């Protein structure tokens, strides 16, 4: 191995260690048969058992799932429409409008949504306000993924459908949607993972009463980092990981399934 390669590899190793060792510790200690996060005292599943007996934690998880599912559904429909619109109508302002929330600091989005809900809509904060807030910041992500997929495609495929007798709606249903479906699903999964662990925006737009998972975890560690927190974190990590893997697989497939412009051309 060349000297420069060695250095690169070690640098990479350090970066990855820095990223993943803390996560690994959380996972390991979730199975540790001790209340203290200090030393290894043997393998146990008791923290997971405790977790599933913790009423408040279960409610928080349920609420977070409802929010994440609703928000990702809403964001997928709206984001797909936005992605299609941005691709079709070459308006300069449209992408700016759709993509800005993606780049906007979360704290700003959280504060502005809070003010909007309270002062403009006069909404009582709760599940609904969180769902709307999460949908808002996920739309941009879905739109970006959908548009990226469309950009790689031969435009004449859609014209061919119209040309051969399909109405606009039939073209969408029979040609456009099947072709962008991997991107749509990837966008949905991405939205789900963004929503389920979002803290900042949730914190601003949640009312009192409804426990939400990330906030609940935060509240618990204010007292102490208990193995229960490790357990719920491990589960959350697993769920997110699965979603990310599926999403990246679907996005990657766009390049290899023969619909890119290069292959048809």
């Amino acid at each position, binding site marked *: 191995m060349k000297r420069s390669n060695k250095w690169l590899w070690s640098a990479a190793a350090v970066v990855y260690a820095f990223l993943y060792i803390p996560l690994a510790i959380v996972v390991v200690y979730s199975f540790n048969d001790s209340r203290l996060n200090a030393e290894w005292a043997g393998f146990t599943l008791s923290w997971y058992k405790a977790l599933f007996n913790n009423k408040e934690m279960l409610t928080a998880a349920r609420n977070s799932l409802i929010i994440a599912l609703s928000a990702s559904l809403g964001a997928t429909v709206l984001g797909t429409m936005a992605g299609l619109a941005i691709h079709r109508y070459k308006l300069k302002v449209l992408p700016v409008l759709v993509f800005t929330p993606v780049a906007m600091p979360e704290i700003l989005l959280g504060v502005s949504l809070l003010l909007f809900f309270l002062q403009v809509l006069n909404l009582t904060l709760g599940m609904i306000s969180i769902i709307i807030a999460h949908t808002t910041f996920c739309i941009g992500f879905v739109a970006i993924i959908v548009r990226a997929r469309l950009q790689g495609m031969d435009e004449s495929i859609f014209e061919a459908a119209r040309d051969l007798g399909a109405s606009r709606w039939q073209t969408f249903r029979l040609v456009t949607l099947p072709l962008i479906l991997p991107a749509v699903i990837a966008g949905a999964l991405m939205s789900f993972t963004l929503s389920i662990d979002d803290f900042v925006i949730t914190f601003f737009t949640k009312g009192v009463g409804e426990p939400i998972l990330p906030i609940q975890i935060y509240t618990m560690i204010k007292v102490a980092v208990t193995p229960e927190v490790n357990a719920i974190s491990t589960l959350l990590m697993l769920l997110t990981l699965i979603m990310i893997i599926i999403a990246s697989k679907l996005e990657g497939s766009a390049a290899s*399934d023969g619909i890119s412009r290069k292959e048809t051309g």
Partner: protein
Amino acid sequence: MALLEIRKVTRRFGSYTAVDNVSISVETGEFFTLLGPSGCGKTTLLRMIAGFDMPDSGQILLDGEDMMGTPPEKRPVHTVFQTYALFPHMTVSDNISFPLKMAGNTPRDIQSRVMEALDNVRLSNFGNRFPHELSGGQKQRVAFARGLVNRPRLLLLDEPLGALDAKLREEMQIELINLQKNVGVTFVFVTHAQNEALALSHRIAVMNQGNVEQVDEPSKIYGFPRNRFVADFIGKISMINALVVETTPSHLKLDIAELGEVTTISKEGIKVGDKGVMAIRPEQVRISHPSDEVVLKNHFLGTVHDLLYVGDVTTYIVELANGAHIKALLPNSAPGRAKFFEVGDRVGVSWRQDAGIFLND
């Protein structure tokens, strides 16, 4: 009544006029070609016939019916795209059955017609393949089958052979001629390749900068180009400045400065004193040794300036006494011999009195 009638159609994009007051009519059963360099407006015109684009003014009539405002899916017109535009997520059979399904045919009818269509393009065993499993030529044939399966009144072809390599293109040209003959559907074919247009078409419209320069049969387009653009765009041609000095019902007499008089066939609307060029195709010019006896009246001496050997023929560029260049084509009939004359050789060039044409400025 013409099947397709384009009446004074104009299409502008901003300040750029893509199609400028074009009128064309295409008869039923015809193989009609729009030929021109890129940017001449041929594709814009095709897109307006298909319904993807609308004219700013003028009319497009199909079977006498104005197509203005009729969306693409409601027109009895199908398009074969340059990129084939096969649906990548559907099998070959599903691609071909798509227009039949859209038209509401029964499943049984669809099945038999898809089989027939696959048979027509010799792809009977490929029904279950996906487009990315096919070669370029096979994709092309699927695109033809899909475009023709429900017998449109008109099939538009947008440079469909452009993506194929030279040898395959020639095979597909023959296939295309036979296909059109068999199905009897009217074809409007767009291309920038003049040899393709000459080989395939019943009639050709030569387009340039949004205008139609000439509409004629291939042999007329090649033999009697109406103006210098058409003459230059189609095939090879030599053009030498000339002045009309005498007109008769059958012939024109031209004076070529510092060279002499040339006789060409007569042409309507030309009068004594008109300036222009004498144009002649390389294969019409005979090249000979200067001492050879020549019976043709249009006969001059010159020097071989350059030559180009391409296997079957060699083109000799001969410089005449006045400095003008004229191309002469000679078949390489002696095996293994690339040329009969060398650069710098003195030669005679001659051509029939009905071979050259006069094109005025």
